[in-house]
């Protein structure tokens, strides 16, 4: 009896054990397979992060919710945007003015969120225009471009617009060195004669207005990327420099000769002192300084005629070169501010600089030479550690809160995770395919939100349904909360996101402006009530003071316009409710439609080409009677004597 009981007990125990094991396995499988759950945002729920992805060759910024990967909006920055009339309306055209005239396109690379005390503050986002060197500031209350400043004495504003830890400055470095000042000279005389500049753009702490504080004149290398110090290294910025060979042709061979190139360490506090002490010179320059006037909603284009230029030869302790393998691309500073981590793209070994070692080497003048008078620090002294056989083609680094670095590796198409203590790789995951930048929310600040890492890939191939020869760029999202990175999702992106940044939603969503209050509208052509609508002639210009509300324009019948006139429709949206824009377009218009937000006035220009009666209408479906929101404008022969008249209703 006892024996049988014991046997029964044993069997029961065995069953229990098997059951527990099976259950444990199930749990593990669930954990491993809950990717869909982690990226799922239920209907009506919000994403945890706003992601800002540069548009690359589309010149804009895409706003992408994370973790869902849903595109929420496109912010037009450097390129005209037919969707809402940015760069087409009379109010926004001045934003795209440069020393080279009206430039309706640029190549936007690196979004950079503003910071306070080294952490994201949700006020603004900056982005560089690479081709015609510019920096833009977008206000995160409206998600609209508020400033664009042109960078003179520069070619290819690539190492930009990285910020200091309190957004004192955003920086701009020339990827392409050029004659400074520009002049007509043989390209073959590049060496020693072409120069680079590193520009420090002051950000007004109150209104965010951008102005050029000073430019530093540098040897004619290619200044590729940058990041500024934080904590102990606050006061310094670091720029990678490749093509230290100063090649001007076939760079893929000729600029890949040196085993080590440089990271240029700039002490901007010393620069400030030298400028204050009169050691800089003011030189002639011609560049645009554009900003949005909040009261009128009209962008203002101002041209500047000089800039402060600082030669390192006249300012001791301003610049040092940190020898860095090989043709480095990114340079990133860890959250403690101690480690300066370059991406030596042609070297499989990562060499990490120590900021405190760098200071010691400067202090003891531990130099191995100089380049154009700029001291070169001793590589062996300043190095903190090296990650051997890390990966192929390391480009960029972002950081978590636990002392790990995540490095994107272009050639081997992977992200590696490695330790700043042991300098050993602890994990690696594949990306699809050929990753450029990577991004952790807050991953270049002192306070990373280390939940996810996003891979921004250059090659897409077979990831999505094929769409002819051209494919959108792909991105992948990985969970980094555990020891192992785990891929969660794969989503398409617009243009070519070179870099992205992300910020917790609560730091931005509470500040959103919902309407422009009508009583604060100081646009000179605003019409704040229907009784005030009118049409006025000034020579061949006809100004229509028009209002829009669900569901009519006032006036909606206009006569007395003549062939040869230019008509300006100044449309004020009288609505004061969130998400009720009206659109405006008329037949044969040579611009794009304008999308007018509640309380806003926008102006679109129309030059009629023929005699006739032409319709205009609301382009944004606004109500059940949206299809009725239309009107006519009559264009008479140039010599007719029909007086201007306008009306609405009978």
């Amino acid at each position, binding site marked *: 009896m006892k024996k049988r009981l014991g046997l029964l007990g044993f069997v029961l125990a065995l069953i229990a054990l098997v059951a527990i094991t099976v259950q444990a396995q199930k749990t593990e499988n669930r954990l491993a397979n809950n990717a869909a759950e982690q990226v799922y945002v239920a209907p009506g729920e919000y994403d945890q992060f706003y992601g800002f992805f540069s548009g690359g060759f589309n010149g804009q910024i895409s706003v992408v919710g994370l973790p869902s990967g849903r595109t929420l909006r496109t912010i037009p920055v450097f390129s005209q945007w037919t969707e809402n009339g940015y760069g087409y309306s009379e109010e926004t055209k001045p934003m795209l003015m440069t020393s080279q005239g009206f430039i309706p396109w640029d190549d936007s690379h690196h979004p950079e969120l503003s910071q306070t005390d080294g952490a994201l503050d949700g006020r603004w986002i900056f982005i560089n225009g690479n081709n015609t060197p510019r920096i833009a500031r977008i206000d995160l209350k409206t998600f609209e471009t508020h400033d664009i400043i042109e960078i003179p004495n520069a070619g290819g504003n690539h190492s930009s617009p990285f910020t200091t830890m309190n957004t004192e400055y955003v920086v701009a470095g020339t990827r392409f060195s050029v004659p400074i000042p520009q002049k007509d000279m043989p390209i073959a005389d590049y060496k020693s004669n072409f120069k680079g500049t590193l520009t420090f753009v002051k950000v007004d702490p109150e209104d965010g207005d951008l102005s050029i504080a000073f430019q530093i004149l540098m040897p004619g290398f290619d200044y590729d990327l940058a990041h500024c110090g934080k904590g102990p290294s606050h006061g310094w910025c670091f720029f990678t420099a490749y093509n230290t060979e100063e090649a001007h042709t076939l760079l893929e061979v000729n600029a890949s000769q040196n085993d080590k190139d440089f990271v240029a360490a700039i002490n901007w506090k010393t620069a400030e002192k030298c400028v204050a002490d009169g050691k800089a010179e003011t030189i002639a320059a011609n560049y645009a300084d554009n900003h949005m006037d909040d009261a009128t909603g009209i962008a203002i284009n101002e041209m500047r005629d000089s800039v402060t230029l600082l030669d390192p030869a006249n300012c001791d302790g301003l610049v040092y070169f940190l020898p860095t393998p090989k043709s480095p691309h990114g340079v990133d500073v860890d959250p403690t501010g101690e480690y300066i981590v370059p991406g030596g793209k042609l070297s499989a070994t990562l060499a990490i600089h120590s900021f405190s070692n760098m200071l010691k080497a400067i202090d003891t003048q531990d130099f191995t030479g100089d380049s154009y008078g700029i001291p070169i620090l001793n590589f062996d002294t300043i190095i903190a550690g090296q990650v051997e056989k890390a990966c192929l083609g390391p480009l960029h680094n972002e950081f978590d809160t636990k002392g790990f670095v995540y490095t994107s590796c272009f050639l081997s198409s992977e992200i590696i995770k490695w330790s700043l203590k042991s300098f050993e790789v602890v994990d690696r995951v594949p990306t699809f395919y050929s990753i450029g930048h990577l991004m952790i929310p807050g991953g270049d600040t002192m306070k990373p939100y280390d939940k996810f890492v996003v891979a921004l890939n250059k090659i897409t191939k077979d990831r999505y349904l094929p769409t002819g020869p051209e494919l959108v760029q792909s991105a992948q999202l990985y969970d980094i909360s555990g020891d192992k990175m785990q891929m969660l999702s794969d989503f398409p992106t617009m243009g070519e996101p070179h870099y992205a940044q992300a910020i917790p939603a609560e730091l931005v969503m509470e500040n959103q402006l919902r*309407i422009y*209050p*009508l*009583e604060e509208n100081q646009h000179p052509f605003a019409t*704040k*009530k*229907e*009784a005030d609508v009118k049409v006025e002639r000034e020579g061949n210009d006809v100004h229509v003071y028009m*209002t829009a*509300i*669900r*569901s*009519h324009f*006032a006036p909606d019948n206009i006569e007395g316009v003549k062939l040869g006139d230019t008509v300006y429709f100044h449309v004020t949206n*009288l*609505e*004061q*409710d969130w998400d*009720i824009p009206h659109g405006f377009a008329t037949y044969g218009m040579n611009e794009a439609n304008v999308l007018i937000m509640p309380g806003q006035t926008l102006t679109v220009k129309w030059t009629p080409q023929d005699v006739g009666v032409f319709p205009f209408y609301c382009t944004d479906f606004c*109500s*059940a*009677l949206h299809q009725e929101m239309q009107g006519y404008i009559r264009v008479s022969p140039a010599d007719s004597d029909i007086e201007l008249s306008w009306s609405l*209703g009978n």
Partner: protein
Amino acid sequence: MKMHALVLGFLFGLLLFVGLNGLAQDNSGLPKGVGPISEVELAELDPALAEAGKASFEQYCTACHKIEERYIGPALLGVTERRSPEWIMNMIINPDVMIQEDDTAYELFAEFMTPMANQNMTEEQARSILEFFRSNDAE
């Protein structure tokens, strides 16, 4: 049977008509609508307040409303006799909810087919517009 239903329907309709009519005449029993305004104390007409209300009305409301004739929305003469002061202010401040939850507001939406615009009016502005309507109706 058919005859019965007809008579019953007629009687019911009559009752409803009489009932509604009675309600309309008793101003204090008018529905107050849905929104933040639950009680408005009306005093003697305040001409300065009515003047402020007229200015707000002209700025924010005239694109859709006229006093004496139907426009995008209904004519507003006599509105203080048709509706309670609370209903009027709730319709100004809280139109999005009103057209969904208040029967009269919904019927008006169905008739005019354009939703009453939310012009982001404050309670003070709505109160002054109410005073402007009262001054119109007193004339």
